[in-house]
């Protein structure tokens, strides 16, 4: 390795093992944040002009006036289908249009009728349709209160922090303008503060041709002590109050060696917050793509548990309340208030706005092996052979930036990855059912011999700098341009670059990874793009947080198009925004091989799941630094139970393929990976569910136990779907963990020992290095494929084993979803989706999609019924035929039913080929008739 290799890293990034905070702004260093935060709660200068109120069936408009400067705003209020309210505030007559975020909402949200209940000089009361919900619009000062019955669910501008910096002419240049205009502006007596028209951070200056344009609004949440969401932050699941510190910041940044437990911005931003108490869950979606800061304060923060109890006993307690304030640098106020009331309702409401999780190819849910970098093809082959030799399953191997020809994406290093060999290699990979991911970053090397660059330049697709030239910055390839992904033409062109005949060396089993798409600009302010860079009519300032979203959107579209719309794409992104869930997976960026980073992976992915981004993972092992073998094993054990399961490592770290730490650790890692593979049917079904409903795959406990306050701040354990509870071991040298098993009157089964535990208890569990504490909820049925093979594709035709964990009422329910695992044909009703239920000693199944058809060679080979008593006999009923079943009764609590793959074991060899062919049909009819099929115990 040449010593110059990491020159850029060396030059551009700090050399210490912690984030260089000085590279990133605090609120005080961000002029608009400082300005807005200087406003304290109090009387709002805004007044609603009730005489301007217009109410059509579905839309209310009303003008607001700022009594200080007489600038008028236009408020729009909508009742949206699915129990949501949309509040939109813009300038009534802005000097020029203000940015409204496009492409994030999947459609113009359908509205519902509203009606005027009453009106007087103080305000109006509107009915929000059903459920006795009303919104009270108070005129002086302006505020909104959303009520249900007599209960206030949420108040807007109750603290008077609505602020709207109207667009204005610059004063020092105004004298050239008409005297009339000058006078008009003069009337406002605006105070000009530092940073309104220009701002400098470190050596970077931000010309602000449009001047101040920030917006801000406050929300009060009575009865709420727990708020969640607004990823991405390396912080606890429950958001903290920000009094006395910086607000949570949402501004997509490439943060080198990020610190934990603080509100600093990271790679992605989803401006969605959930509020929860035992009665209700609500959400706020602040649709704004500019730099955003979120302040949280609470009247109970700082009170001890004892203090709260004292309040309760003395009856003197004020209602707990959380106040939230959003501040954005530009754009408009466009807020979706999601009114729940249940957590699942909020997920559905949000999904109806921004869409659901992309349904990934099944193999993408399996294990991914990555490293910066596998040096050459031989290296990749050796790693593949290592997995083969050590019998550890994997599906994807990843190529980081070094695979390219000098960081020119869409190309291959001519020595290490010559393209003719890449074809041969990928063909070989397709034979052995493995896949590959190659990185494609959105910074394009400025090089007139590079086709991609030449095309983008000649088509004018680059983002422009403030002076109109192509914006250039430093990134991996050196000097680079940044394509304007906000331009739909550019995105269409980019997508076309993934066509097999355009992207040399690509094949069906080559997928894509979008890194550095915040965008990362090594020599830019805060390692990102200058805010005064220009995207057509808009400044980068207006849409910064959307850039990564668009990059992934265009890439995913490219992968769909290259297969003629047949194959599902798989694209991993580092930067994201609301709606990014529609395009693939995200990961938590460049973490480190430290125990705390392992711990934080749980709340980071839980927070993302809450706001729709289910396909989340952290680099297994930690990106920077070198994990001890204990940490590596624990990370595999944790990662195996998180949605996106990929090991990754920095170029400077020693190799850490799973077999490099001695046979014992190899065996531990193998076992963890195998547990993942065995559970793939469950993961797949959950992702199908997430795709259909937007419900998170990896969930905090409170989502399923919304009234159990003990779970509200819990982020060292989590649920997968509703039926598996995971408490990974994340402490060094742990001898035991304390898992909280929720649910009074419920039971949980240890998935390894099948031991039954009661719910609503803290269970101390001794652990060894092989322990991964996982529990199946009594009352659930989970399908597994316990014949673990080399890759998920190899397991396609394998039989299922159903794990039926009985509730104390001796019932259980579950689902089974099967399709081809990789195409969009499920949209053409080519799948099997059945509900399995166990009640009254009968396990039966019903077809959840009777109009769907799919044939599979898989069958059910075994059913384990946990928590049952010994039956006298078991029968299988199929199409009226009644067969006696093999069964075993194990450990005095488990019934195991066995269904050998009868067909071909009963036939002579000559017969087999025919029966093979017939078996497919058999399974088809098998499924079709399963309704009549019963297992009687």
């Amino acid at each position: 390795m040449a010593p110059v290799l990491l020159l850029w890293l060396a030059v551009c990034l700090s050399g210490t093992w912690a984030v260089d905070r000085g590279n990133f702004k605090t609120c005080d260093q961000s002029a608009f944040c400082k300005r807005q935060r200087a406003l304290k709660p109090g009387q709002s200068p805004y007044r609603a002009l009730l005489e301007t109120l217009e109410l059509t069936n579905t839309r209310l408009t009303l003008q607001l006036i700022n009594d200080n400067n007489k600038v008028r705003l236009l408020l729009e209020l909508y009742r949206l289908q699915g129990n949501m309210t949309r509040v939109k505030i813009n300038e009534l007559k802005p000097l020029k249009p203000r940015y409204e975020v496009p492409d994030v909402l999947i459609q113009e949200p359908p509205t519902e009728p509203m009606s005027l209940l009453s009106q007087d000089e103080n305000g109006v009361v509107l009915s929000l349709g059903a459920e006795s919900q009303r919104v009270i619009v108070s005129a002086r000062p302006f505020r909104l209160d959303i009520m249900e019955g007599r209960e206030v669910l949420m108040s807007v501008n109750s603290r008077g922090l609505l602020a709207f910096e109207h667009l204005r002419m610059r004063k020092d240049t105004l004298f050239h303008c008409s005297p009339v205009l000058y006078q008009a502006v003069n009337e406002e007596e605006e105070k000009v503060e530092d940073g309104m028209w220009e701002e400098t951070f470190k050596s970077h200056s931000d010309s602000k041709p449009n001047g101040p344009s920030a917006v801000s609004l406050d929300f009060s949440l009575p009865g709420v002590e727990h708020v969640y969401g607004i990823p991405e932050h390396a912080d606890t699941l429950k958001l903290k109050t920000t009094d006395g510190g910086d607000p949570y910041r949402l501004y997509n940044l490439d943060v080198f060696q990020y610190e934990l437990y603080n509100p600093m911005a990271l790679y992605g931003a989803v401006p969605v917050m959930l509020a929860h108490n035992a009665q209700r869950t609500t959400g706020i979606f602040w649709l704004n793509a500019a730099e955003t800061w979120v302040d949280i304060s609470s009247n109970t923060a700082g009170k001890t548990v004892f203090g709260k109890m004292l309040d309760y006993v003395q009856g003197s307690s004020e209602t707990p309340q959380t106040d939230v304030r959003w501040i954005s640098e530009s754009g408009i106020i466009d807020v979706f208030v999601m009114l729940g009331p249940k957590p699942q309702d909020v997920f559905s409401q949000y999904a109806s706005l921004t869409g659901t999780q992309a349904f990934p190819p099944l193999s993408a849910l399996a294990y991914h092996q990555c490293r910066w970098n596998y040096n050459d093809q031989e290296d990749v082959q050796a790693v593949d052979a290592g997995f083969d030799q050590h019998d550890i399953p994997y599906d994807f191997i990843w190529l980081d930036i070094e695979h390219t020809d000098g960081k020119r994406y869409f190309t291959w290093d001519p020595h290490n990855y010559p393209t003719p060999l890449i074809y041969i290699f990928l063909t070989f990979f397709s034979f052995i059912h493995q896949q590959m991911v190659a990185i494609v970053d959105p910074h394009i090397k400025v090089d007139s011999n590079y086709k991609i660059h030449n095309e983008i330049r000649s088509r004018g697709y680059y983002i422009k700098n403030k002076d109109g030239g192509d914006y250039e910055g430093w990134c991996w390839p050196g000097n680079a341009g940044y394509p304007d992904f906000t331009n739909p033409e550019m995105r269409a062109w980019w997508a076309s670059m993934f066509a097999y005949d355009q992207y040399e060396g690509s094949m069906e089993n080559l997928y894509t990874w979008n890194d550095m798409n915040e965008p990362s600009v090594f020599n830019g302010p805060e390692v990102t793009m200058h805010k005064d860079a220009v995207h057509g009519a808009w400044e980068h300032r207006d849409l910064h947080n959307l850039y990564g979203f668009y990059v992934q959107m265009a890439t995913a579209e490219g992968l769909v198009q290259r297969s003629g719309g047949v194959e599902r794409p798989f694209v991993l992104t580092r930067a994201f925004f609301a709606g990014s869930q529609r395009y693939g997976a995200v990961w938590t960026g460049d973490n480190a091989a430290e125990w705390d980073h392992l711990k934080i992976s749980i709340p980071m992915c839980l927070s993302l799941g809450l706001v729709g981004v289910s396909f989340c993972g952290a680099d297994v092992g930690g990106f920077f630094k070198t994990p001890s073998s204990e940490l590596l094993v624990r990370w595999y054990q944790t990662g195996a139970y998180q949605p996106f399961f990929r090991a990754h490592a920095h170029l400077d770290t020693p190799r850490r393929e799973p077999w490099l730490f001695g046979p014992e650790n190899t065996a531990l890692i193998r076992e963890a990976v195998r547990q993942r593979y065995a559970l793939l049917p469950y993961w797949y079904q959950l992702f199908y569910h997430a795709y259909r409903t937007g419900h998170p795959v990896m969930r905090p406990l409170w989502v399923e136990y919304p009234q159990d306050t003990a779970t509200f701040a819990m982020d060292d354990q989590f649920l997968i779907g509703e039926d598996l509870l995971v408490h990974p071991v994340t402490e060094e040298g742990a001898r035991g963990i304390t898992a909280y098993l929720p649910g009074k009157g419920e039971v949980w089964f240890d998935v390894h020992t099948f031991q039954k535990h009661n719910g609503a208890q803290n269970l101390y569990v001794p652990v060894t290095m092989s322990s991964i504490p996982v529990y199946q909820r009594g009352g659930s049925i989970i399908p597994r494929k316990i014949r673990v093979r080399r890759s998920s594709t190899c397991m396609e035709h394998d039989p299922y084993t159903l794990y039926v964990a009985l509730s104390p009422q001796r019932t259980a329910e579950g689902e089974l979803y099967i399709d081809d695992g990789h195409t969009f044909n499920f949209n053409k009703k080519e799948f099997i989706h059945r509900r399995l239920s166990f009640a009254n000693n009968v396990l039966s199944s019903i077809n959840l999609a009777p109009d769907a058809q799919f044939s599979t060679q898989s069958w059910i080979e075994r059913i384990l019924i946990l928590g049952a008593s010994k039956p006298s006999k078991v029968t299988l009923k199929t199409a009226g035929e009644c067969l006696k079943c093999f069964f075993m009764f194990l450990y005095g609590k488990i019934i195991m039913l066995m269904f050998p793959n009868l067909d071909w074991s009963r036939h002579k060899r000559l017969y087999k080929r025919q029966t093979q062919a017939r078996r497919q049909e058999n399974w088809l009819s098998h499924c079709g008739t399963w309704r009549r099929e019963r297992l009687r115990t």
Partner: protein
Amino acid sequence: MRRHIIMAVVFWSVCVDSRKIRGISLSYKRFYRERKSFLCIDGSKMIPFEQVNDDYCDCEDGSDEPGTAACPGGRFYCSNLGFRPHYIPSSRVNDGICDCCDASDEYNSHAHCQNSCRNLGQRERADVEGQMRTLDEGLRLKQQLIEEGVLLWREKQAQLRDLQQVAEDLQIKLEEHRRRKHEADRLKEQTLKAGDRGHRHQNRTVTSIFQILDSNKDGRITVNEVQAKVAFIQDEERSLSEDEAVALLGGGHEMDLSMFQLTLWDSLRAGDSVKIKGTYGVPASLADEDPNIEAAERDAVREDTDLKKVEEAYETVNMEISDLRNKLTIDYGTDREFLFLNSQCYQLKVYEYTYTLCPFNQVTQKSAVGTEVSLGKWGTWAGTPENQYSRMRYESGEPCWQGPTRNTMVTLTCGTETALRSVKEPSKCQYIVDFQTPVACQPVLKQQGIHSEL
């Protein structure tokens, strides 16, 4: 007799067991005799025989499903006629990937597997034959190198002895020279002491000449005085011009005694250009400067130079000795077969980098632009416990940016020539070099032949 019975039984079982049990080797056949029931090989369970290979796992040890993927941890026997038979994990049966060259593992899958055992067998036999030839040739060369090594070792020992002899001789010489230098110094000292008078005499001479020139006795010689008293040897008649006088005065217009001693005195003493008018040549008192002193000084200088030369030689020889001793303390293998590698260097160009391995010394990398980086200096043998000479470790090379120092593991493989085969860098700044040489050939390899079931 007993043997006959056993043979008969085996024969019988072979006849009866007409149904081939998939996935087992001949040696396991006895466990799968077709009967009413099957006992799991670990003895844990008895199951009806039709449950063998029925694609459902009954035995904990997986022995009832040798031919299907039903049991976790089971194994499937590929008989691979024409090639090597071997076991694969039974999870690879019917997984759509051809593992056994006889295609027996994919009897019920979409994979279109061809029987490639014959080809593989041929290729492997060719390979093995090639390897055997390489090994034979390698071992022959190795024997030669060992023999050469013995000679080389002797040569080196002889060299060491020679050097030691040279060193001893030099030491004697050194002592002799030291003695002689000491003597010369002593002599010089003596002479100098003796010549002290001469020295004073010389000073007197200088003064007297100065006084001759200093006509007005003011302690300074001026241009006029020079013109009056000094003449060219060649042309006594011609008076010196003012410029010439100034030149003789060292560029000034007058000089005192001390200045005189440094300038004009030298010219007069040399006696090749100017003289005092009325005299001949060099002032008499100068010509007879003490010859003893000069000789003694010359001797002392010569002895000093000689001594330094000898000392240098002695030092060089001693360094060579310690160098050689160090080299000879390195472990060159049981038969000193690696000895010949010492002082050799081998190069390999990998794209823009040229790698150089100088065994027992260092590994370097030179880029196309010419910067050379040390990838490690000779450390230790680092092979397996069975063969510690299979790998060499070179450590403490140039430090990496933000990282540890570069180091290199050299793996030695058997070949007929000695050459670098490949250089890799699996982790940053950790290099792996494949180094081929006949001396890495191990005769044990020869016992591994091809096992084939033909």
